[in-house]
């Protein structure tokens, strides 16, 4: 987004477009995709079916941890059947129950994954429903022909009028129209699309509401934005991010180590005259390998993507989502992101010998017909300061002088009084006077502070200056401060000169600014801070943002932006809300935190399981080892079964956390770490002791297995 014409006036059309083209500044995006309740009935039913289908070992090979559990389940089931056949009912009961819980462990993990996938799938289905077979009016040398949209080729030109669906992705080459893009964005307010400039891209499947446009098709069949979105949501479901791959590797390594640990227990136990059954060994193995995180890992990643989708952000790669957590510099446009983008009158500075009240009155009169936000704000300010009510002008000799690019002034001729307001030089020229030094200094000072000075003159006399200030969005300062606390540097991009930029940067509270930004300078800036090792996130909408976007680690292109910007970005914000980047960063961090928290939790859980299983395994040969049974579990069989039940149940218990994500508040890493280590590290150490003990009490009370010590 570029800053507006610094004369203080914006043409009426410009304002209207700005209002139509993006959501009103400061408001939260309405029209957000409907968030599904976590336990949506259909979803749960479909996920249950899916989790059974996922038992296919071929489907489990991507998850070595669960694959091992499934192999273990098969072995124990076979063992149980063998006991049943030989009539050893006691052993059958114990082995059978272990087998059931092992199968449940796999099913729970499958269910978690299916739930996460199902939520993504639901989004994709919703989009697919909107894709209908549309007809297109194609412009050919012979005139306009009606053809099915599916036959359109790249480069074809089509005409779309009010009420018609745009047949494919393209660029407006002629005309201007308001378009309903709710099919894609969920946003019901129409947006303006026009030829040339930064708002020329249209998306297939959206509807033209007014006027007529000519669109040049830029994407062939199956490559349209809608097609890509559906495939991305579906593919995104199965795409692993680099960190996820590395973590999966570590989990596979741990699984291998524990496999060796358990396999070698067999000869050790034989040597010690304390032989252990295969069922118990498998139980030990499953208890030790990181099943909790192994079962929830993919669900965490998928649900993270879903959370972005719920915020109307489409990530084109999983890598970008992860990079969002790592971003330590974010570049924000000044106008519209940090500031409201519309300037408001904030003060009157009268020239020497002029009363401020007189200045205010003249300024108000000159602005009565000015419908721009700036003009209205002058009227409001005058009313606030001096209780000046707009006089009734009907019947008087009134002639409004509208703003023009030539004069760069506007005003009113009222009962012989000529009042003008506008850019300093223009007004001074009109008044045919030299600016007195005091007023000149005031004008200079206002510019320096990053505001826009307007001069007001009446009948060739300069009355003084009005300060039009670009107001900082409410809450943005606090947001930037919390980002700083989280170690993220913010950089303001502005077309202003360095002096002005510095003043605004200070007021807003950004760490750095890039003044007089041009496409080249933006790109150079991104490149230079990346070479210092920073990860850069930025938002862009225009073609001039594309080079910088292409170089950023997290590049959010606005859906209203140009095709070039969209191609260069690795995320698309369907709401086109420039502060969205901050939310994206938070979601990125949330995914990583959830992954880390559950990994830590999973690994430290093992300690308690050891204290349940090891004494149970060897207490017959070495009764003294019962001293390690610090939970005082009833019998070896109840102890082992309880550990396995806990191990299985903890997965569904943590599904909501995996899908929702651990709460993230922007603060220092040390604070977050201390808190999470306490909850998931220490908590993960203690909780299973309590959990296994409780389950053991229930198992013993129900006499599910032998309670003989």
């Amino acid at each position, binding site marked *: 987004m570029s800053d507006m014409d610094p004369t203080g006036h914006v043409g009426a059309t410009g304002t209207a477009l700005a209002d139509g083209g993006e959501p009103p500044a400061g408001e939260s995006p309405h029209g957000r995709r409907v968030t599904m309740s976590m336990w949506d009935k259909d979803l749960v039913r479909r996920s249950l079916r899916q989790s059974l289908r996922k038992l296919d070992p071929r489907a489990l090979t991507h998850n070595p941890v669960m694959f091992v559990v499934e192999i273990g389940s098969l072995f124990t089931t076979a063992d149980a059947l063998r006991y049943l056949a030989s009539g050893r009912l006691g052993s059958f009961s114990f082995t059978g129950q272990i087998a059931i819980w092992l199968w449940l462990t796999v099913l729970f993990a499958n269910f978690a994954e299916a739930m996460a996938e199902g939520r993504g799938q639901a989004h994709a289905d919703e989009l697919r429903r909107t894709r209908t077979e549309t007809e297109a009016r194609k412009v050919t040398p012979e005139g306009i022909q009606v053809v099915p949209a599916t036959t359109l080729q790249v480069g074809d030109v089509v005409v779309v009028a009010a009420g018609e669906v745009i047949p494919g992705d393209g660029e407006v080459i002629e005309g201007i129209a308001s378009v309903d893009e709710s099919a894609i964005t969920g946003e019901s307010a129409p947006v303006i699309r026009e030829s040339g400039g930064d708002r020329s891209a249209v998306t297939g499947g959206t509807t033209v509401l007014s006027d007529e446009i000519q669109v040049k098709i830029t994407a062939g069949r199956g490559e349209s934005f809608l097609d890509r979105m559906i495939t991305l949501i579906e593919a995104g479901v199965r795409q692993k991010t680099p*960190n996820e791959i590395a*973590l999966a590797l570590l989990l596979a390594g741990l699984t291998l180590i524990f496999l060796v640990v358990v396999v070698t227990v067999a000869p050790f136990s034989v040597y010690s005259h304390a032989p252990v059954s295969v069922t118990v060994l498998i139980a030990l193995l499953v208890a030790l390998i990181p099943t909790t995180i192994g079962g929830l890992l993919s669900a965490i990643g998928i649900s993270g993507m879903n959370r972005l989708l719920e915020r109307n952000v489409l990530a084109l790669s999983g890598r970008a989502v992860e990079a969002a957590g790592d971003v*330590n510099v974010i570049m924000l446009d000044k106008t519209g992101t940090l500031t409201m983008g519309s300037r408001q009158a904030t003060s009157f500075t009268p020239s020497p010998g002029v009363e401020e009240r007189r200045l205010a009155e003249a300024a108000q009169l000159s602005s009565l017909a000015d419908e721009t936000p700036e003009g209205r704000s002058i009227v409001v300010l005058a009313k606030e300061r001096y209780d000046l009510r707009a006089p009734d002008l009907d019947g008087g000799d009134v002639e409004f002088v509208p703003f023009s690019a030539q004069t760069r002034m506007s005003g009113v001729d009222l009962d012989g009084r000529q009042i003008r307001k506008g850019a300093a030089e223009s007004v001074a020229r009109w008044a045919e006077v030299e600016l007195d030094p005091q007023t000149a200094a005031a004008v200079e000072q206002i510019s320096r502070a990053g505001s826009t000075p307007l001069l007001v003159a009446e009948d060739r006399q300069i009355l003084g200056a009005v300060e039009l200030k670009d107001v900082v969005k409410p809450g943005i300062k606090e947001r930037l401060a919390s980002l700083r606390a989280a170690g993220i540097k913010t950089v303001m991009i502005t077309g202003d000169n360095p002096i002005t930029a510095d003043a605004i940067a200070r007021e807003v509270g950004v760490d750095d600014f890039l003044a007089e930004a041009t496409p080249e300078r933006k790109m150079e800036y991104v490149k230079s801070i990346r070479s210092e090792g920073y990860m850069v996130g930025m938002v862009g909408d225009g073609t001039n943002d594309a080079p910088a976007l292409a170089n950023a680690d997290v590049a959010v292109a606005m859906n209203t932006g140009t095709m070039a910007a969209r191609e260069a970005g690795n995320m698309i914000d369907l709401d086109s809300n420039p502060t969205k980047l901050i939310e994206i960063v938070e979601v990125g961090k949330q995914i990583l935190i959830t992954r*880390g928290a559950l990994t830590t939790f999973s*690994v430290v859980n093992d*300690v308690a399981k050891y204290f349940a299983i090891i004494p149970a395994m060897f207490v017959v040969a070495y009764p003294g080892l019962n001293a390690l049974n610090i939970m005082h579990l009833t019998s070896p069989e109840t102890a082992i079964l309880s550990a396995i039940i806990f191990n299985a149940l903890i997965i569904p218990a943590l599904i909501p956390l995996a899908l929702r994500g651990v709460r993230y508040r922007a603060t220092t890493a040390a604070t977050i*770490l201390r808190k999470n280590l306490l909850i998931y590290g220490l908590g993960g150490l203690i909780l299973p002791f309590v959990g296994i003990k409780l389950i053991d009490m229930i198992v013993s009370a129900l006499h599910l297995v032998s309670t003989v010590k």
Partner: protein
Amino acid sequence: MTWQGILQIFVLLAVVTVVGFFLSKYMYNTLEGGRTFMDRVLVPCERAVYRLCGIDPTVEMRWTRYVFVLLAVNVVGFVVLMVLLALQPVLTIFNPAHMHQVPFWVNLNTSISFMTNTNWQNYGGETTLSYLSQMWLTVQQFLSPVTGICLFLAVVRGFSRHNANTIGNFWRDFVRTLLWVAIPLAVIGAVVLIALGSPQNLHAYTVVHTLQGHKQTIAQGPVASMTSIMQLGDNGGGFFNMNVAQPFAGPNAASIFFQLILGFSVPVACIFLFGKMVKNTRQARPIYWSMVLLFVIGALVLYHFEAAGNPALAAHHLRLAASHNLEGKETRFGTGTTSLFENSTTTISWGSVIASNDSLTPIGGLVPLFNMMTGEVIFGSWGAGMIGMIAYAVLALFLAGLMVGRTPEYLGKKIESFEVKMAVLSMIVPSLVILVLAALSVALKAGTSGIFNPGPHGLSEVLYAFSSGVGNNGSAFGGLNAASPWYSATVGLAMLLGRFPMYIPLVAMGASLAKKQRIPESAGTFPTHGPLFTVLLTGTVVVVGALIFFPALALGPFAEQFAAHAGKLFGG
């Protein structure tokens, strides 16, 4: 336990910290381009070595080249040792005691042992080896710790360099560590040890007639020099079979304490050297404290159980002179010093002993066992302990580091798939080797026939042998026929695997890190310099170690300790 016994743990730590701190400055200047007061004497020597060997020390090496040269140097040392030992009966020089042929398995085991800085000895030095053989062992005792420092430098440069394809020049690292660090310190050590009462000569063994009329052969030789480098280089392979319990090698308490200082000096210096190399000395602190914490806990547990003695005796109200477990201990030094020494020997990967570990109480014996099983990262040997700890730090950060909401990074370097793969590989090696070889040993006749004490104690003996081998420690628990072909071969294999396959992946990890860009530190960075990281790191070492070895330890030391409480005996 006495307060003096406890106090000496902390006195030792305080002294070695000061020594290590100053030594690290000297080592940093030597190795990373600074000036030292030794330069005037040593630079000409260094140049002479390079000219003689035709080495250009300024050529930067990629990690593959670095490792290749490192392996080549080690192989040469190994081959020379094997040939010397094989030709011992033929080579008549420096062989006044006319030592005979060294059996092949013993030769192989010994050659591996002294190449890998293990110094596991399945022979009696004074009854098997000629002075010439002992001298080449001493050469290996210089080469193997220096190799450890080279591995250390290669790994740490991964963090200290960025956007770099090379990790330094092996020859330069090797020659400078040898000339500036190993040789001068060994000379000082030898002189002090002579002053404290150890012999240094090349005489034939003295035969004397005792008062009872028996004939006794008193072994002697270049004891002080060999003891000096064996302790300084964390080798532990002594001149005598009894190691430092022999009065010539450990004549008095002062000598023992001095030897402890020698052993700790370079490993402690490596911690601070790491901080200096990564240009952030605060980063060395949590590693230092975590090592200290693990060391102190181990020392106190060991001391406690040795001081408490056998619970069966206490249960029968047998109040002997003291209930201390004095069996197998050097009575001159008592329980406190012995416990400290045995804990130290397994933390700094020494292997030098002043007691028979076989006679420690079960939990007392568990402590040295656990020290080795965790990969000898509590100080550890020259360089190797520190990089082992770095691998733990990488894993800890990878497991828990995500919790700050960033992909894990350590010292500004991102930890990704390749680094994790290498760190896991280096972690899998010791656990896999110890567990698999120990399992085979208790399952096969060849293994069980070498166990002198059946029952849980025998399992501890087997576990100890392989832990000592893999950890390149070299200390022996005893109670095992280590010279049998089975144990010679398997422990030899363990030593080999515990050296190169364990540390070379870490060099590869370092090289991959060196290529990366450095990420600037911010408030969003996982803080790796505070007490929180100390706790996390210590926790990781304990939890990972405990998770992997708990079942085996339950059947070994734990079962034995609880059985002792119950007064149960095991036959044999």
